[in-house]
């Protein structure tokens, strides 16, 4: 598994920094809050982080690994899936770095490279529901009854809206992505057997 994408080569300038992984992960470089080279490892993000207080999640070490190009260690670790996306770190970061956005980019990268994600099966259901009904959360019988009592229409999303969403999804690759996720889940099942 190690270095199978060839990212772990030493940087051309001879430093231990690795720009190829960094460039891949940090796409929106024009925003100052995405300039992670500004991180001076103060650890304020770890001190305030709710996930760090109850698990091994450590945003400071994750940033360091990204800058040093430790691709496999970051993407293969369960830690990147533990961020609460609460933005406490962002508003307290002295360099105003958008750590939740970095974590999200890492999650996308991990998924695309086939690192399995816990909970993928549940999310797949949400994704399929979005495609079929235009909303993430399925509408259950009990809620239908409540909506009626509250004087609301049973389903606020028209068939036409769902159809338009379907066209958009086809056009932008949602269907393919959902199928890809399904394959990942199947692979995992086979591995277990």
């Amino acid at each position, binding site marked *: 598994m190690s270095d199978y994408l060839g990212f772990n080569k030493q940087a051309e300038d001879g430093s231990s920094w690795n720009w190829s992984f960094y460039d891949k992960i940090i796409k929106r470089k024009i925003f100052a809050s995405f300039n992670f080279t500004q991180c001076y490892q103060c650890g304020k993000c770890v001190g305030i982080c709710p996930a760090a207080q109850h698990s091994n999640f450590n945003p400071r070490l994750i940033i360091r690994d990204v800058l040093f190009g430790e691709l496999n260690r970051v993407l293969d670790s369960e830690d990147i899936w533990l961020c*609460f996306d609460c933005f406490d770190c962002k508003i307290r970061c002295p360099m105003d770095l958008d750590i939740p956005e970095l974590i999200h980019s890492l999650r996308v990268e991990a998924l695309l490279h086939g690192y399995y994600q816990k909970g993928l099966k549940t999310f797949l259901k949400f994704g399929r529901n979005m495609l079929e009904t235009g909303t993430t959360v399925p509408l259950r019988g009990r809620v239908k009854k409540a909506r009626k009592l509250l004087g*609301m229409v049973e389903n606020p999303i028209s068939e036409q809206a769902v159809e338009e969403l379907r066209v958009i999804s086809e056009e932008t690759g949602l269907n393919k*992505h959902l199928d890809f996720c399904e394959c990942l889940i199947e692979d995992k099942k086979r591995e277990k057997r």
Partner: protein
Amino acid sequence: MGINGERLEKIPVNGSFYIFKSCVSSNVYPGIEACTLKILESLGISVVDTDQQTCCGGFTYFATISPEDTFLATIARNFSVIEGVASDMLVICNACFSVLHYFEKITEGFPDLKVKVNEVLSKIGRRYEQGKVGFWHIAEFIYKVREELARKIKFNLNGLKIAVHYGCHYLRSCPEVSIDSPESPTFLEEVMETLGGTPVNYKEKDLCCGSGWIQRYTARDLSLQITARKIESIIKEEADLIVVVCPFCLSVLDNAQIELETFELLYSRIPVLHITQLIALLLGYDPDKTLGIQMHTTPVTPFIEKLLENTIE
């Protein structure tokens, strides 16, 4: 930093609004939307509607189950739908608000993304133009009209202790458009005071509700530990009610209590209401037929019983 006067000034209080539909609100706690309608009605503000809006798409994107292009095109489509019916919308969910703001920030920074989403939208005969629809969080709108609401309420919050929870995806994730300081906001406490209540100052005010977007599904134990810390610190201050401004926070704080009790992480329970539900209740609307409290797993009746003693003659 305090209140952002410039933003407060801009929030429209007349004309007509579109209410942006949220998935958890529509399909778990429909009372939130119903209450928002009643509040606007009592203020004499008209509401327009359309059945063309879909889910904001934020959850699927941030759970990495949807590509970025789908996510951006879905939001752009919703904007283009809404600009046909209204020039301002009220958002009742933190996540929707945060997602709409994120979209505007990203497409402003990267104009090529705007071209890209419009290419996709052209397939369904639509077009997105930036800045045509203004969007405002229901909490900041309520803050602006708090005095008027205080004159209209039939019950007040005298003698009741209220714990407010701001949620993560509102002030903290959108500091560019936040009405109050993202680090130490106080505007919801001010609303509670205006309505006669006593806001409690609890230790874990800044802490996430425990949802963590996906942690409620992927790391249940971790999520419950955070929720327990949050609720415990509120109960310690002897609060009568938790008020939230996000349906997802409501869902977590309301549903997790029964689980926490099972794991013996919590020994008493506290009702949770969305701010729109609380205000509709104070305006005298029916708990079942407007608030939809039958959808809550933690009973709201203990709070309603206390409130009944506070009738305004």
